[in-house]
């Protein structure tokens, strides 16, 4: 099995594993702090051919493999690059890589409305997390942001295209887990948008899953819209007998009111099992569900009570390292 080292943490993984998967295994097995896992905005384990678009998961390959130790000339998308035996990867330990990633984050944000205060996704938004962790405080973009009209795609899903980062996840979800995709990516370049082109409802037993895969607030659940900030609701693991899906969900409670139902997501924000629209939209009584207990939210996000400390410490460590590097460079020059 090829051995790969990510930021100094090593693991043997099966042939064909990507760098991102390897780092997630390291984190899941507790062998590496979560913060070293590259962020992923478009890659989704359950969706074939996903990944490679957003470029946030780029990493630096400082050693290609045991056979060919040359470093790779450009940063590579860790979600698509498979590991080679002896490969050495730098994520948080490469200051230039972090700067490149900050650049990607800046690109993702220049046309994003930053309307978090009125966005239902706030608190569990991956773009929010990404920006906090990798972005800069201000923006250098001073032009009008690209805007689209909001559309209702059927009576359950709101498409707020302004917020979209074109991760293609919802398109792949519709393609791969529902029959009869009616939405896609229309136009090209920075005019590209997720759209049905003509007014059309996405109506399918599993169509609601596009809401769960959306990393931002572009696709939101109309039955939950403006009901509550997510951090005021209590996520509970719950299940019911369902003949369409697994019936295992997370219900988000306020008191005894079921405000919304979502799929259960793992620590990397990916759903564990797809759920059907009946469970998602129609079972909003507490009696519809068998409550298993409070759901542990592992992600370092607002809903997990602002635990940014560990990450902040890491950033401090890295900036110290960067300074050390610079000092080393100066020393080099002086010696010559």
């Amino acid at each position, binding site marked *: 099995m090829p051995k790969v080292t990510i930021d100094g943490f090593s693991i043997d993984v099966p042939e064909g594993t990507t760098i991102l998967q390897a780092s997630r295994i390291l984190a899941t097995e507790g062998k590496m702090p979560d913060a070293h896992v590259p962020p992923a905005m478009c890659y989704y384990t359950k969706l074939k051919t996903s990944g490679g678009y957003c470029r946030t998961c780029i990493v630096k390959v400082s050693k290609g493999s045991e056979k060919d130790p040359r470093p790779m000339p450009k940063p590579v998308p860790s979600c698509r690059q498979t590991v080679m035996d002896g490969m050495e990867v730098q994520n948080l330990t490469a200051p230039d890589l972090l700067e490149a990633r900050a650049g990607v984050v800046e690109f993702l944000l220049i046309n994003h409305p930053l309307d978090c205060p009125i966005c239902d996704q706030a608190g569990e938004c991956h773009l929010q997390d990404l920006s906090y962790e990798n972005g800069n405080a201000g923006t250098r973009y001073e032009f009008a942001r690209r805007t689209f009209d909001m559309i209702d795609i059927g009576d359950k899903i709101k498409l707020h295209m302004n917020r979209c980062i074109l991760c293609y996840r919802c398109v792949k979800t519709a393609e791969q887990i529902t029959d*009869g*995709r*009616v*939405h*896609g*990516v*229309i*136009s*090209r370049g920075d005019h590209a948008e997720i*759209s*049905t*082109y*003509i007014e059309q409802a996405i109506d399918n037993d599993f169509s609601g899953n596009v809401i769960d895969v959306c990393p931002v607030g572009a696709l939101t659940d109309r039955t939950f819209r403006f009901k509550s900030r997510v951090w005021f609701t209590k996520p509970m693991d719950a299940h019911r007998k369902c003949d369409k899906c697994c019936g295992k969900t997370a219900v988000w409670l306020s008191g005894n009111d079921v405000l919304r139902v979502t799929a259960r997501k793992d620590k990397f924000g990916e759903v564990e099992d797809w759920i059907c629209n009946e469970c998602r939209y129609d079972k909003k009584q507490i009696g519809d569900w068998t409550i298993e207990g409070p759901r542990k939210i592992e992600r370092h996000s607002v809903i997990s009570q602002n635990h940014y400390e560990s990450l902040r410490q890491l950033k401090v460590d890295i900036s110290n390292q960067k300074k050390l590097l610079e000092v080393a460079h100066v020393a080099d020059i002086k010696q010559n």
Partner: protein
Amino acid sequence: MLNNLNIMNNEIKFSAEALAIVKQMISRYPDGKQKSALLPVLHLAQAEFDGWLSVPVMDYVASLLSIKPIEVYEVASFYSMYNLKPVGKCTLEVCRTSSCWLMGAEDIVRHIQNRLGIKDGQTSSDGMFTLKTVECLGSCGTAPMLQCGAKYHENLTLEKVDELLDKLATDNKRTTYLDIV
């Protein structure tokens, strides 16, 4: 050439001649890969149905190739040669990238704008001309140039543009990419 389209009762249907071409196009690809014919068939549809692709036309193309309508919308909106809105009979596509700019494409564009009283992307009030500024058409050595239908009009001067516009107005015919020039 293929203008005997059947638009009676709003029915969108290719002529028998065009259908034969579609069939022949599909035969160029392996079995089950008929989607490959999408781009050429869209060109044909645009030429047959008034120079643009309406939703019913695109749905019709989808049905011919046994693909989902959204797959056609995705493709038609990606490529710059497909018009998703009605256009004039003659679309003047003026190149304005580097070499054409160096040789005075701006003057050509402004001249057309002034003469027709339209801006980039607009259609003249008589429905005759649509002005479209485009990026490099691969005619840099004969710049400035414009494309109208299938024809490249090269080494343009303001006089040549006037002559061309006069001629097109007199001919009063729809130009398409499929024209034989």
